């Protein structure tokens, strides 16, 4: 029990946060420059000086390049054909090619946009240099400046830590509760309690209360680790966060209690937990934004308590959203907790 409470969160935070990154740091590039002109060298140099690219190979053989791509040693091939520069000056299609390993579609999309940006930049240089004075009109250009708020360095950890905290609190709350209650059933102690004059709801409250405290404690502990190790910003009001978490945990403990009524052995209840946790986690928006999900998934998410807390935790911690900003979620989770708790208690009284 103790190791679960202390070690699991640390390990999860450390590993999950570091592993779960989609940033592109090393794009392995193979360059086939058959032109060897000043323009093509200029392009190559651009990539060489970029921190994102790692030029593994240079050669004149497309076949070799494609082979490396097939083996998975490189991500992208930049192919500059013979006569690139001279065609370019003539204003013809210059035939520059990018071949990207697109099995990981997202990464490929990013690689493409990074690479295109580098090339567009170079294009602008060429235009300024070579645009013939005959054409009077200067080519149009739009200056795009961008800024990333709340996380200017696009530090992925800042995003993951609050998400994983939600995962952790939910895991502890739901699994421990349901396991513990089923254990009582298995051991027969639940029956024992039934013959004592203690009221059912007293018993249930007594069983749930420690887990409620443990989970809240876990949240505090996780926040501390997040602050100390990952230096996540805590912009918003912690009181508000804990208020929301407290209500949220009613819903989670309710779900745990409910699951415990569906099983008679610990193994069975673990299976049920396992199934639903996976569903909840994947749909909660931990990894990918909820709005990119299809409509039916968003409907299912109404019944996914994690989706609410996932959103609210990040809003409060990273952006400092206030009570009115999270009001819709707060109301939803309160109603959710009320429904699931009553349902669970009703079923629990019937079964045990």
């Amino acid at each position, binding site marked *: 029990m103790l190791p679960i409470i202390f070690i699991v969160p640390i390990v999860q935070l450390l590993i999950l946060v570091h*592993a779960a990154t989609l940033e592109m740091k090393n794009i392995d590039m193979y360059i086939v420059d058959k032109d060897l002109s000043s323009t093509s060298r200029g392009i190559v140099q651009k990539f060489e000086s970029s921190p994102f690219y790692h030029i593994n190979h240079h050669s004149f053989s497309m076949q070799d390049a494609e082979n490396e791509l097939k083996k998975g040693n490189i991500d992208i091939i930049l192919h500059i054909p013979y006569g690139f520069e001279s065609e370019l000056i003539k204003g013809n299609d210059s035939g520059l090619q990018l071949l990207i*390993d697109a099995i990981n579609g997202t990464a490929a999309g990013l690689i493409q946009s990074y*690479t295109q940006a580098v090339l567009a930049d170079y294009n602008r240089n060429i235009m300024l240099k070579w645009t013939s004075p005959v054409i009077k009109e200067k080519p*149009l250009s739009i200056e795009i400046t961008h800024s990333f708020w709340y996380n200017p360095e696009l*530090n992925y950890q800042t995003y993951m830590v609050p998400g994983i905290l939600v995962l952790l609190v939910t895991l502890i709350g739901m699994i421990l509760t349901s396991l513990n209650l089923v254990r009582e059933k298995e051991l027969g102690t639940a029956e024992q309690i039934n013959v004592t004059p203690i009221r059912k709801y007293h018993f249930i409250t007594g069983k749930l209360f420690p887990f409620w405290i443990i989970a809240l404690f876990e949240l505090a502990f996780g926040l501390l680790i997040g602050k100390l190790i990952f230096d996540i910003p805590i912009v918003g009001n912690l009181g508000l966060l804990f208020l929301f978490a407290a209500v949220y945990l009613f819903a989670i403990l309710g779900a745990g209690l409910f699951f415990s009524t569906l099983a008679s052995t610990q193994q069975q209840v673990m299976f049920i937990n396992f199934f639903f946790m996976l569903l909840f986690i994947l749909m909660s928006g931990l990894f990918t934004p909820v709005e990119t999900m299809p409509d039916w998934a968003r409907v299912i998410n109404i019944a996914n308590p994690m989706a609410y807390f996932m959103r609210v935790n990040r809003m409060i911690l990273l952006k400092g959203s206030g009570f009115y900003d999270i009001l819709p979620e707060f109301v939803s989770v309160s109603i959710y907790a009320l429904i699931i708790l009553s349902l669970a208690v009703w079923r629990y009284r019937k079964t045990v």
Partner: protein
Amino acid sequence: MKRFWGFVLKEFLHIFRDPRTMLILFGMPIVQILLFGYVITNEIKDIKIAILDQSKDPVTIELTNKIISSGFFILDRNIKNINEVEDVFKEGNVRQVIIFESGFGRKLKREGTANIQLIADASDANTANLVVHYTMAIINDFVREQNKLTGSPIQFIPEVRMLYNNELKGVYMFIPGIMAMILILVSAMMTSISIVREKELGTMETLLVSPLRPTQIILGKVTPYVALSFINAVTIIVMGNLVFGMPVQGSIILLLAESILYILLGLSLGILISTITKSQQNAMFISLFTLMIPTILLSGFIFPIENMPKILQWLSFFIPPRWFISIIKNIMLKGTGLMYVWKETLILIVMTSIFFGLSIRKFKIRLE
């Protein structure tokens, strides 16, 4: 032999009689495929944006329309003042604000250049990054079109070819990942639990006293899971193909053979876990923490291995699914043969033999 099959039959009965076991065995793969296929996408779609247009001229309106009609973005609202940005972000729906400077169109015409400012809510760094890059691409595209109309200056336009996955589909990543996960789950976790359960119930003793040999008992326990894992593997491949159009470019026989190798690896792990644990609970937790979570995180299934810190990259060498995923991606998408995946295959074979060796040793020690 007859003794053996009776025993296998019993194991199937255990599985089919418990709806919760069936939920994990068959509900999970299907739900996962659907979730990953439709829900977990890194594609940008329907992202809500706000626009602060201080110019409102034909150019900004045209550009706005172009951005909105791209399908990536939905215009949540127009804002009037830069101060509203903060409120909009705190509410949490809008992820990007696009700001056109005043006199945008006029400036563009006269001076040939004008300014757009993108502000992204980077509390979700990934999405923010994608959103900004997508927006920039649309704007650059717009510029290129405009320039084409006014006569082409010297510039090159790269031809981009997305190999193996033309449409940048996410399925190509997740089908191999799900296969790796489900197979290890069924073959390792379920087997270890079912063996440990016999120990817990005391039936293992009865079996060991019977004329069944220990190897027969273990084989009898794992045979149903081999069959079910195999069915799962085929289901995932077929579903991937029919529902999501995941191709099988290479040899299907090689693909199935590699799957069986991987299933055996899972079983050897499951048996090993069962020899070192006494309760189902422990077996389950060990399976979860040593198999499931690393599979999800470190196998390259969701997050690219190259981007991880060095330590985790090293760690991923010891994660069997990493190699399996690499193998099936190669076979299914690139159509490569054994020549290209022999290294990974060899690693899996070595791992399997080590695990089997260890569990046989453990099992013998226990009996003495």
